[in-house]
């Protein structure tokens, strides 16, 4: 079977050939440790500096406000724990949203177990955080606001500029998890009043194993990775130079021509959304109709379960993902889908398809050909679905 349609770019992307090409010399020839005095070390240092400059340029930051990490998760952990611990004398209250990635949410839970208080702001049915609710949640104990730039599941884009302005006005640090946003939304840390920002290379056609934390000059933060003096003594560990070089190249590519790439992706995305809505009954588009990432499609299909849907699509050569509990081995479906008001049962039947630069119209048309059949087959097996009545209400 010839079809192979990858629609899981929000989970991870391939590394673009031109990115890999820049990385390769750093494995076998220019393999020095950037901390070393000798020429191998100096070559490595030069490459590290260049990657830092490229990353800074992509965010309108200063190169020495960029700290490389091993992942987006590490950047999130560091941003939240580091500022919380360093500012705990000022206060112990953190504001975040209920639809953050677990890298932020579980870090907040950890801090709650260690004396911090966390407000998890609700979102509306589209997944939007209301900036006014951020303002109202601020107390004199608040030290950090952390709201993601765009959601990884439903693609909703948050008003981070407005939230940043409120935080700045109140003199409170603002962190944004921009792991899904980089390359999709133009980001300007100065204009948006962002104090800390996390990113992860493998979400924008860079390699796995490299993330970065932007930390505005003067931000008080504790180290979470102790050891060598790397990253200006704030993040220990031999730098993953090939991956960092890849991050630098990838972010440079990612922030170039965002409007053109988005226009192409949005056309495909809308074709997919409209196609599903017009061919499959009892479905629901999750996330915001307009304020959503150009490549994100997220649907709930009533009466069926997400993993079974994924498996069926996979057999047809279509790779997607789901917020179903059964894909993760956890008991509850996605906290994001629950937070936008879906019932457990509907949330279990969710499907996320995230488009990337290599997807074509043919890919979309193929999905639109396959998906209705697959949904129908599963519904016919489902005790919740009544062919004649078109489904019964959930118990």
């Amino acid at each position, binding site marked *: 079977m010839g079809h192979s349609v990858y629609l899981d770019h929000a989970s991870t992307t391939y590394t673009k050939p031109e990115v890999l090409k820049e990385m390769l010399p750093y494995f076998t020839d220019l393999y020095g440790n950037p901390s070393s005095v000798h020429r191998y070390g100096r070559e490595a240092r030069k490459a590290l500096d260049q990657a830092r400059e490229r990353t800074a340029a992509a965010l309108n930051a200063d190169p020495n406000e960029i700290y490389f990490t091993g992942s987006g998760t590490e950047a999130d952990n560091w941003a939240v724990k580091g500022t919380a611990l360093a500012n705990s004398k000022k206060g112990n209250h953190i504001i975040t949203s209920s639809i953050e990635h677990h890298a932020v949410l579980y870090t907040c839970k950890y801090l709650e177990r260690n004396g911090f208080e966390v407000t998890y702001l609700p979102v509306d049915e589209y997944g939007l955080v209301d900036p006014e609710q951020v303002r109202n949640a601020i107390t004199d104990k608040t030290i950090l606001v952390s709201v993601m730039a765009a959601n990884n599941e439903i693609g909703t884009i948050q008003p981070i500029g407005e939230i940043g302005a409120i935080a700045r006005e109140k003199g409170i640090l603002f962190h944004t998890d921009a792991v899904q946003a980089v390359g999709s939304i133009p980001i300007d840390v100065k204009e948006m009043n962002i104090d800390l920002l996390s990113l992860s290379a493998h979400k924008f056609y860079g390699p796995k194993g490299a993330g970065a934390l932007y930390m505005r000059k003067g931000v008080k933060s504790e180290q979470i990775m102790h050891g060598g003096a790397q990253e200006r003594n704030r993040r220990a560990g031999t730098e993953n130079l090939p991956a960092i070089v890849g991050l630098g190249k990838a972010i440079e590519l990612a922030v170039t021509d965002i409007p053109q790439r988005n226009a192409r992706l949005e056309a495909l995305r809308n074709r997919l959304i409209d196609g599903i809505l017009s061919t499959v009954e009892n479905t629901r588009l999750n996330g915001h109709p307009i304020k959503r990432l150009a490549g994100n499609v997220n649907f709930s299909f009533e*009466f*069926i*379960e*997400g*993993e*079974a849907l994924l*498996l*069926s699509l996979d*057999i047809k050569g279509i790779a997607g993902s789901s917020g*179903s*509990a*059964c*894909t993760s*081995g956890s*008991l509850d*479906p996605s906290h994001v889908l629950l937070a936008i008001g879906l*019932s*457990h*049962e509907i949330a*279990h039947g969710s499907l996320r398809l995230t488009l990337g630069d290599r997807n074509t119209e043919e890919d979309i048309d193929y999905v639109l050909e396959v998906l209705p059949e697959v949904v129908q087959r599963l519904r*016919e*097996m*489902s*005790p*919740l679905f009544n062919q004649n009545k078109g489904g019964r209400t*959930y*118990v």
Partner: protein
Amino acid sequence: MYSEQVMDHFMNPRNVGEIENPDGVGEVGNARCGDIMKVFMKIENDIIVDVKFKTFGCGAAIATSSMSTELIKGKTVDEALRVTNKKVTEALGGLPPVKLHCSVLAEEAIKAAIEDYKNKQAEKQTADSI
């Protein structure tokens, strides 16, 4: 992740459907948890002559539904009660650890259907003896 047998039973599930006027019906699980299995049985002389199922759930849930109904078809009620989730899992060439609860679902649905059958039998006998 899944064995070939699981994928086969997922893609070509045996015994999907409903039985009109079944002798026993069992439904376990709930939609909130992401899986429901409903089993219908036709039982003659204590032998399960036909069995059908409908399942809302993941690939493992559907495959175990299919396999477990296969394993009990043509068996006596007592034999069917001895078809444990372990046997179903083995017959499927194993399941990932996080999916083992799905095989319990099938076992429970079968037990519930047989229970329903026995209750109905008991009712009938009571009705007969009155």
